[in-house]
């Protein structure tokens, strides 16, 4: 690691002084190989008011420092938003989830191998240097939302669940002013600045994630496909919740992981499904609408089939066409 000044933040104003560290499970990894080399490190773990899960307008406000384990184990989350518990538990290991925080998980960096290799060109790590993944190896890359400057995918499982649950990110600036942005407006596409990943400005701190009221009676699931059964990043994932009335599909919410620079959502697909009778034929048509025939990198072509199949499997689970482990019913958490 390059030397840095260590600052223990006591107040929100201290945050503007350097690179934020929370659980450190992503940042220290990157600092050890000098992909990130801050002059100053601001430890936010002792800031007040960021470590609780509180009831909030029928939903929950999850403080940015609440650990991934605490969210996944919270009785209210397990009851009302089971897909969030499942998604978190599908990620990393118990050790990492004990340390990883809600804010840090949202802001974790990509797993593109060239981002990690300081001898390679990477616009995300060194803006303007180029993109070694183009023409290189890239089976973890995105298939949606990429640009000619970066093809990287966002690796978080938790963020995908939160997008499907229509969560909002609460941001506080150095003067203590707070604003809330929907998950999907929180992340920016790569365009010509892949190094700028979110709408956070200098001195902005993520202070919480707000979950809206759960829809009781919904079936929820998080399906993750990976190279080994556990402790591996997703190749693709599908977070979904559906409410059925008989055979008719009612409210649908879906988000897709490890296929885009941020949790991917597609309103066209939701519209194709809502109000229709659940059937394999419908899901196959929707899967084709969701995933086009071509991928931006030859190594990710397999994701076209994989995401379609995972989507169909998730929809069969959520609509009751298939009985499958890992389907949870959301209860009102009162």
């Amino acid at each position, binding site marked *: *690691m390059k*030397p*840095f*000044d*260590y600052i223990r933040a006591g107040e929100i104003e201290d945050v503007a002084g350097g690179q934020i*560290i929370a*659980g*450190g*499970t992503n940042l*220290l*990894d990157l600092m*050890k190989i000098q992909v990130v080399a801050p002059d100053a*490190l601001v*430890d936010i*773990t002792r800031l007040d008011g960021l470590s609780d899960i509180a009831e909030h307008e029928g939903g929950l406000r999850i403080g940015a420092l609440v650990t991934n*384990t605490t969210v*996944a*184990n919270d009785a209210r989350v*397990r009851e009302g938003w*089971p897909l969030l*518990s*499942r998604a978190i*538990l*599908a990620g*990393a*290991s*118990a*050790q*990492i989830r*004990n*340390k990883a925080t809600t804010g840090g998980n949202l802001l974790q960096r990509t797993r593109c191998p060239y981002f990690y290799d300081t001898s390679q060109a990477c616009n995300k790590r060194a803006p303007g240097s180029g993109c070694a993944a183009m023409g290189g190896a890239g089976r973890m890359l995105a298939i949606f939302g990429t640009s000619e400057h970066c093809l990287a995918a966002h690796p978080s499982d938790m963020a995908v669940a939160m997008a499907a649950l229509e969560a909002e990110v609460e941001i506080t600036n150095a003067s203590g002013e707070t604003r809330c942005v929907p998950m999907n407006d929180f992340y920016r596409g790569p365009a010509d600045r892949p190094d700028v990943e979110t709408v956070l400005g200098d001195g902005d701190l993520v202070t919480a994630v707000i979950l809206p009221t759960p829809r009781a009676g919904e079936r929820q699931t998080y399906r993750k496909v990976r190279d080994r*059964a*556990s*402790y591996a990043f997703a190749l693709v994932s599908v977070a979904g919740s559906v409410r059925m009335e008989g055979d008719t599909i009612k409210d649908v919410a879906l988000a897709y992981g490890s296929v885009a620079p941020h949790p991917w959502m597609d309103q066209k697909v939701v519209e194709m499904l809502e109000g229709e009778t659940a059937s394999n034929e419908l899901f196959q048509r929707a899967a084709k609408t969701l995933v086009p025939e071509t991928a931006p990198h030859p190594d990710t072509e397999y994701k076209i089939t994989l995401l379609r199949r995972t989507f169909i499997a998730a929809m069969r689970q959520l609509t009751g066409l298939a009985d499958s*482990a*890992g389907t*949870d019913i959301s209860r009102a958490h009162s």
Partner: protein
Amino acid sequence: MKTTLTVNAREYDVDNDPRRTLLDTLRDDLGLPGTKKGCDHGQCGACTVLLNGERVNSCLCLTAMHDGDEITTIEGIGSPDKLSALQEAFVKHDGYQCGYCTPGQIMSATAMLKEISDGAPSYVSDDLQTASLSDAEMAERMSGNLCRCSAYPLIREAIAMASEVKK
């Protein structure tokens, strides 16, 4: 950076470069080499310790961030003449070959058994409301500890045995 740590119920004052990880502090400054360095990047679990009672990878902790915290290492849960139930079960069931991953496995399993008794679910739990110790549950819950010698079946047997003893 001056930091006070309580390790295995004993208080230590350390004065470290802020870059020092908890793993290096334990091994190199406090003379507790039981905790192992496998990857130094959070990928193997060899460095697992309990931080305020919860399992974490000590290679991904900066010592300076843990002023006032309580740490338990493999040296703190038993001694050669008084092994913990898990340590004894690993010996009895040959839960290792080279032994390099073993301290991490045992610290991780120590925390895992407590998580199950606290009712914490896992990704493979059928129902998020209950926690059990089936073979599949154990494999999932211990997935943060790799064993290069692949002693996994015997590690799971040892844990199952220790959990019987606990009951």
